[in-house]
């Protein structure tokens, strides 16, 4: 009987060791990849959510809705001839938000009518105390735009540009040349007491995200905010 010589410990032991280290390495690599994918996924999800939020916020603001209804009520009590037209403007805005705004793209014409109604109803609310101009140049036909991407900038101008104690001046111009749309909103800055709903920037930041998602590399947004005036210029390449 011969003794089975003990196996030299070398080969197998080293192989074993390498194997277990490799295994550990793979696990670490796997988890770090998972982590990276999940944060990336979270980030896109957050961006989507914020874009969704900005879209929701762009819909008719309850403060605007009820005060506008009260203005129309006031016209009705005075039996003013302007009552009927104001009702039609507000119902047009509501119809747009309910039946068009969930679409990815809408005719540019409809978005502009929405903006015009908003501005004209604001004029009824604040009367002649605000100097307001709104102009559209160029051809809107056959062009489409993501719904409610322009309104936050105009709402912002009213939020920071209207205070009955001071003179207001708000100028909105839209010009369309070929597929290029340029929206310019300038308002004289007035004092507005700080409050939750007036927290500056929030609405615009959300819209900025939405533009990034909807018009990647096809928009340019420049904002000038100084003590005298607030100016927004948005350039969009339409589809």
């Amino acid at each position, binding site marked *: 009987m011969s003794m089975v010589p003990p196996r030299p410990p070398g080969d197998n032991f080293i192989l074993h060791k390498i194997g277990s280290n490799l295994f550990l390495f793979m696990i670490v690599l796997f988890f770090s990849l998972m982590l990276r994918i999940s944060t990336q996924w979270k980030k896109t999800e957050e961006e989507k959510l914020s874009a969704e939020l900005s879209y929701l916020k762009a819909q008719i603001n309850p403060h605007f809705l009820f005060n506008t209804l009260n203005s129309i009520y006031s016209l009705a009590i*005075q039996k003013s001839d302007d009552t009927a037209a104001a009702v039609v403007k507000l119902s047009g805005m509501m119809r747009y938000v309910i039946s068009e705004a969930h679409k990815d793209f809408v005719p540019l014409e409809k978005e502009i009518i929405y903006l015009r109604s908003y501005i004209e109803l604001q004029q009824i609310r604040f009367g002649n105390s605000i100097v307001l101009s709104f102009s559209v140049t160029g051809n809107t036909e056959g062009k489409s735009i993501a719904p409610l991407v322009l309104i936050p900038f105009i709402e912002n101008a009213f939020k920071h540009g209207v205070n009955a104690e001071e003179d207001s001046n708000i100028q909105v111009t839209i010009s369309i040349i070929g597929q290029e749309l340029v929206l310019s909103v300038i308002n004289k800055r007035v004092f507005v007491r700080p409050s939750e709903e007036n927290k500056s920037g929030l609405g615009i930041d959300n819209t900025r995200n939405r533009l990034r998602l909807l018009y990647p590399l096809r928009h340019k947004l420049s904002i000038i905010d100084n003590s005298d005036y607030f100016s927004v210029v948005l350039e969009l390449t339409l589809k």
Partner: protein
Amino acid sequence: MIKAIAIDDEPPALNVIESFCAKVDFLQLEKTFNKPNEALRHIEKFPVDLLFLDINMPSITGIDLYKSVEQNMMVIFTTAYSEFAVEGFNLQAIDYLLKPFTFERFLQAVNKANEFYSHTHQQSTAEEQFVYIRADYSLIKIRIADILFVEGLDDYLKIHLQNQKPVVARLTMKAMLEKLPAKKFARVHRSFIIPLQRIESVRNKILIIAGEEIPIGSSYEKSFFEIFKV
């Protein structure tokens, strides 16, 4: 009659209140303001009984505006928002109207104001009509409207009355002045308290009341002429 003003930064909202007030006979809407600061300056000079106050305005909230009003006034808050209601009631608001509101709802609110007004008003007129003075071991009821002037004499004072004998009471001038309505009486001299509405003429620091000459003391001169602006 309840005197009121309305404050809202949106003119159409003021038009609603204006047309509703015109239909209520016990309400007199004196003025409306879309600039809250202008309203505050006005109230200081010309106090009213009731404020219609919008809560959400860009320069100041109606709540802060009401807190800064020093005079005692009733307030009805109006707003298109609802989350301010609780704080509105903490401030003892008469009511809280959500815009747009009907005339019936408005009437309900101003009726509440009217009840509150007549309740507090009755009390104050009853309180102000008489003053009780301890004299000659008894408590004497004196009609405030009958007082010509009060004359101080060392430890006593003499209350001169219209068509009645003067009442002599052991009372200090300071204690007497505190018993009388502050808006209607003034101390014009170390020894004289006078009802402002009985002043017949003022000349060279001498007042005439019921034919009597009453001197104005040099240390009372400034405060007297502040009240009695000519």
